[in-house]
């Protein structure tokens, strides 16, 4: 076990009467890829908003590198090395791809020329290099997802939160993105990802948390999660696990 870079302790978030996240605890080990999965509406994106300072939890604590960061503003967390992508992509549509990435690079680089150079380097890593001068408004879905990734990476994060970067991509585009995400991890960036594309989660993640109705119902390595009856029932309905097992036995 390496030491945790992020530790979430009993966090809850209420929107009026709606409990989006209930007493969730999870730990992200430094240098690994950790995934959060769960059905729609399970509170995954809210969890990301809490970690990155876009929302303040109703209760509970978030620790990052052993410091309490609960409720700290988003831009301050970005300066400390927490970067995120958005599930609904948020490009700076009026700017070029290069200018978009440069905004991220400017976090630690004051000079314009140096920031543009750093942005170009990041663009190479995620495969955006051929379209640097294109307007972000003209990008395809996969281009926008790559841009989200590039912009976040340009801030040189220690912890990168990826909110469904593979959603909406076709199988060959997903195949192209997997090595990009692995390469980011190889550079020493810890990754916490929300993902619905299961074969990607199973091949990328070293540890998985399953969030259902705001609760963490299971956690463990991918092989264990795939056969966990609680997880199967959360996705397929009560009794599904028993039916699946029964079906297997009957055959």
């Amino acid at each position: 076990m390496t030491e945790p870079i992020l530790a979430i302790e009993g966090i809850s978030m209420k929107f009026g009467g709606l409990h989006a996240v209930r007493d969730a605890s999870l730990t992200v080990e430094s240098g690994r890829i950790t995934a959060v999965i769960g059905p729609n509406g399970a509170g995954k994106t809210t969890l990301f908003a809490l970690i990155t300072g876009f929302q303040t939890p109703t209760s509970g604590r978030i620790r990052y590198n052993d410091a309490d960061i609960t409720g700290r503003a988003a831009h301050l967390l970005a300066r400390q090395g927490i970067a995120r992508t958005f599930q609904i992509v948020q490009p700076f549509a009026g700017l070029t791809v290069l200018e978009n990435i440069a905004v991220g690079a400017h976090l630690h680089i004051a000079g314009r020329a140096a920031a543009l150079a750093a942005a170009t380097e990041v663009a190479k890593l995620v495969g955006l290099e051929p379209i640097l001068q294109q307007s972000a408004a003209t990008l395809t879905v996969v281009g926008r997802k790559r841009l989200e990734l590039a912009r976040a990476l340009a801030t040189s994060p220690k912890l990168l939160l990826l909110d469904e970067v593979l959603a909406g991509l076709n199988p060959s585009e997903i195949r192209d993105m997997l090595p990009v995400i692995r390469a980011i991890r190889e550079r020493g960036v810890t990754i916490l990802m929300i993902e619905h594309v299961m074969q990607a989660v199973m091949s990328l993640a070293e540890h998985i948390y399953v969030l259902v109705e705001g609760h963490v119902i299971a956690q463990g390595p991918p092989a264990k999660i795939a056969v966990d009856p609680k997880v199967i029932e959360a996705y397929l309905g009560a009794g599904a696990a028993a039916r699946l097992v029964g079906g297997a036995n009957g055959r």
Partner: protein
Amino acid sequence: MSKSGFFPIVAVVAALACIPLVISSNVVLNFLVTALLLTLAGQGWNVLGGYGGQYSFGHAAFFGTGAYATAILQTRYGLNAWPAFALGIAAGAGVGAMIGALTFPSGLRGSYFALVTLAFAEVLRIIASVTPMTGAGVGLLIKLDLGARALQFPGRAAFYWFILALVAVALVITRLIEQSRFGAWLTAVRENEDAARSLGVDATRVKLSAMTISAAMAAAAGCFYAQYFLFIDAPIAYGPWISVEALLAPIVGGVGTVFGPLLGALMIKTFGEAAKLVTGDVPGLDLVLYGVVLILVVGVAPRGVAGFGARCRAWLASPQKVAREGRAA
């Protein structure tokens, strides 16, 4: 976005500086002075609205504060016009910072921000029209004291060069912003505030800085107005006319471009004069024409004349690509 350095600014300013050497007509020079005055106020609006995406309807608050501060310091406290001018700019910037500090941290955006800035300008106008310090309903007259020492140039040409110098400074500041980290952050906030925050941009602080610079430019225009006409009252200094013209110039010329306000100011002043000639003595009809032009500009060239020109050039180079980008946008 044009990133062509400072050469175009030097060229344009040099060309404009030559005009009084060729034309000595007071009517023409007076027209150009008012156009440059509007350019300065419009450039102020452009920094906040064009680059930062925060559309203010109340730049009169800064224009008027600059004008009143200059006039009051001279008439009531006997200060020399030059330091009064500088303090007027500082006072306008201060009001900008104050209004920004009251609005941005509470997350006021879009039309709400526009309405609040309009309200501030109106409140200041009403206060100025009843307070003895500002001359209440009578207004303030700055004593005639011709000479460069009192910033009252005897000829129009000298005034023209003075306002041209101020515009040149504003153009250079705008270009510097465009090429700096601050400018990148400012446009990022305009395009998407949440995404900007996730990349470490302190959106509130960036907007506050932009508003302060913006207000300083509008205040400089107000200070100049007071020195040039030597008279101000509440409807002039804090009236909606300057708020409207300050936003019209960059919108017509091209928001978020260095030369947009200059282009737009020259166009709407030319058009304003032409409209007055055409409509003759019917009051208000020229303003109706104004409105029609604004609607046409927003409809035909949403990015102003500068943006329209760039699109035309791009279209000549590659028509299909422009059509594609137009649909995507």
